[in-house]
């Protein structure tokens, strides 16, 4: 009789233990799911506030201050690993393997300073831009991004901060590059580069 009572008490203990343990763990799991769920909502809210990325491709660039209205070519790198340049004096070129104008990051567009004849090219007057001047890029689908100049820098070619100019960013940037300094006949290269940094101010 005593052994039966003992087994009965042990059985009740095991059953009660399993029940309470299972309930406790599920309560913890539900709390964990709730936390994960809230986290998901926060991430979705962040995604909804991020700039909308248009599927279009940059087609034209306009810089009212220096009367530039030019076609934008899409380029990559040349055989030496440099950012490629537009095919003529009047076009500009967007570095398409990098960031696109309007998305978070540094989009880069370059343009020639001059021609072999000495005549000015599309970015001849880029050096005249000042803080706050606007630059607009329009895509082939009509989407337009307008940027305001935030910084203008001149770098020696040999110490050009390539990672900085092409860097990721929390905001959409557009960086324009052209030549500057003195022409070297031997290397057929200018001594410096001018970079105009700008930040997105509107899109429509």
């Amino acid at each position, binding site marked *: 009789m005593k052994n039966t009572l*003992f087994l009965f*008490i*042990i059985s*009740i*203990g*095991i059953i*009660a*233990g*399993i029940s*309470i*343990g*299972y309930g406790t*763990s*599920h309560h*913890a*799991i539900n709390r*964990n799911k709730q936390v*994960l*769920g809230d*986290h*998901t909502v926060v991430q979705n809210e962040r995604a909804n506030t991020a700039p909308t990325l248009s599927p279009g491709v940059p087609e034209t660039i306009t810089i009212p201050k220096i009367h530039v209205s030019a076609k934008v070519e899409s380029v*990559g*790198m040349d055989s*030496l*690993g*440099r*950012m*490629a*340049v*537009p095919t*003529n004096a009047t076009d500009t070129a967007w570095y398409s*393997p*990098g*960031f696109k104008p309007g998305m*978070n*990051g*540094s989009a880069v567009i*370059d*343009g*020639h*300073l*001059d*021609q*072999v004849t000495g005549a000015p*090219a599309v*970015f001849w007057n880029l050096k005249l831009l000042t803080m706050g001047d606007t630059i607009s890029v329009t895509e082939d689908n009509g989407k337009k991004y307008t940027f305001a100049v935030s910084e203008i820098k001149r770098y020696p*070619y040999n110490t050009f901060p*390539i*990672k900085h100019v*092409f*860097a*990721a960013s929390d905001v959409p940037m557009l960086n324009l*590059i*052209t*030549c500057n300094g003195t*022409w070297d006949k031997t290397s*057929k*290269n*200018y001594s410096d*580069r001018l970079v105009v940094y700008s930040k997105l101010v509107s899109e429509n």
Partner: protein
Amino acid sequence: MIKKAVIATGVFAVSAMAVATMTFAQTATPSPTSGATTVTVTPTTAVSAPTSAPNTGRVN
């Protein structure tokens, strides 16, 4: 009788802890592919940035 009660209480406690631990470990660990725990890392530079600046002078 007291000894039996102590044994029963011990069995109760051990059972509860064991079941709670096993159940939580099996089901509360997020799946590696769970979207809720995915963290997006922003690269410091463009994926394939060029190695040097463009030559934008004296085009033909």
